[in-house]
């Protein structure tokens, strides 16, 4: 993602034949339903294709570079849905979730396994999606923050985050929720100490730790959310 943004800033050439440019009107820019993310992704994709960079698109699409990029087809279950995807070997799991499956709830913070914003569950265990190659997830069951609420119904730990103001800026919240979800699956009523031990790999730059710990303890207490 970092590379894509850099390239996007460098070059926007609407006339390049390789650019799959879409008129703003056709993109629905005037529509109220156009989200900020849709807009950013649309303009970013045009810029990337214009630069002849196919690295972050569907492999092969708009490819102008002659250097072969290793790709692999993987089968992965994400939030209960089976996907068969061709991924570049160098893509991280976080890249794949965000750029291929549009599951942008998984945040990339440090992109170096330090902050935990990218935490997802791989076969029910929290892992840093920024530090796993997507190809390593072949055959795995992945759960992201998008898989928590069902039909608009928040999970107990999500509700507890709302009640306790768990999110401040909110950027770390998806990762916090995934680690907390794994903790509560294995230990349904954790103490504050157990919560802190389990959550050490999820940093919060707003330093809202007390509220986060209180939220997870509340989610675990019997009737804590009643």
């Amino acid at each position, binding site marked *: 993602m970092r590379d894509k943004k850099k390239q996007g800033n460098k070059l926007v050439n609407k006339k390049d034949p390789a650019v799959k440019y879409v008129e703003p009107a056709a993109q629905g820019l005037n529509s109220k339903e156009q989200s900020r993310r849709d807009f950013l992704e649309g303009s970013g994709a045009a810029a990337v294709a214009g630069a002849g960079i196919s690295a972050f698109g569907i492999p092969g699409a708009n490819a102008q570079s002659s250097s072969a990029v290793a790709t692999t087809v993987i089968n992965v279950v994400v939030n209960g849905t089976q996907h068969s995807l061709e991924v570049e070997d160098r893509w991280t799991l976080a890249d794949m979730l965000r750029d291929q499956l549009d599951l942008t709830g998984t945040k990339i913070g440090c992109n170096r*396994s330090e902050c935990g914003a990218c935490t997802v569950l791989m076969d029910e265990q*929290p892992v840093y999606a920024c*530090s796993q190659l997507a*190809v390593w997830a072949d055959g795995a069951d992945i759960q992201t923050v998008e898989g928590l609420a069902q039909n608009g119904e928040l999970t107990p730990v999500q509700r507890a985050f709302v009640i306790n103001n768990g999110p401040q800026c909110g950027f770390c919240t998806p990762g916090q929720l995934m680690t907390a979800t794994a903790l509560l699956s294995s230990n349904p009523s954790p103490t504050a100490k157990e919560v802190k031990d389990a959550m*050490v*790999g999820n940093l919060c730059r707003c330093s809202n730790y007390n509220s986060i710990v209180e939220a997870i303890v509340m989610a675990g207490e019997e009737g804590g959310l009643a």
Partner: protein
Amino acid sequence: MRSLTNLNVASFEEAASAAQQARQLGQSVAFSGGGTDLLQQIKDGTDNADVVINLRSVPDGRAIETNGNGVSIGGLVTLTELSEDPLVNASMSAIAQAAVSVGTPQIRNVGTLAGNVTQRPWCWYYRNGFNCFKAGGEECFSLDGENGQHAIFGGGPSFIVHPSDVAPALVAFDAIFQVTGPNGDREVSAEDFFVLPITDPVRENSLRENELLTGVVIPNLSANTVSTYYKVMDREAWTHAEIGVATVIQRDGNVAQSAKVVLTGVAPIPWRVQAVEDFLAGKQISAAVAREAGEIGIRDAQPLTKNAHKLPMTSAAIETAVLSLAAG
């Protein structure tokens, strides 16, 4: 991330021969267990792997089992599994305590025993791309630089500290390291597995090119063995040891019949303090004995300009570890 090719292999033997073939084709190669640290190094440019050999597809090396020789622990056992294993907790608690003290749950869930033991140093010069000994260069920048977290034992010409928590515990239990390479398997003693920079300033262990650590065997322990791993960090969690002490004692009543004391975070390899081991042999474990053990533990220390704080820290850590193994 830079372009790379992932290669799934079905066995350690296949991993070794694939690495050999890739190198013969001029590719740089990395083995990946959990891969967390490897991907950081690739993103940072401190590892330039063209081919990543993925060991997740290897079914071997995942068991912890007792056999005639002792307890065998597969190299691909994750740190989470190691820290939760009943057998390890019951008879080798230092190993379980060391494993659970590593990094974060996210790292321990994928990180492996072999990966933890063979991880590259975390010296800030090396990790930030300085062309130091560890990167194949000709100097150690810590010597005249920021050396607050560098070696007080065994340094020179490189002054890195070994970063593994698990490794000192393995050494304290006299682990035998099992290695697979293109030409077959071999076993290496704990003493010979780790290599001081005076012998090889580039590498931290005696693995040869295309070889990988596939597991360890902890030789049979006498029933009166007790052990602990005590780790001091510069914050409460989620970092390497300023000083870590693995202590294994054969205890009769409250007498230490024999002892192994191995430090991490203070030397380029897991550092046995034999003077402490000799001192403890035959002693009743008491507050006074533990304190003296701590004092003896730093007699041979040679601090650099900014890491003298590690001396009292090391003494206190040895004292705490030894005293925690007193009977009752």
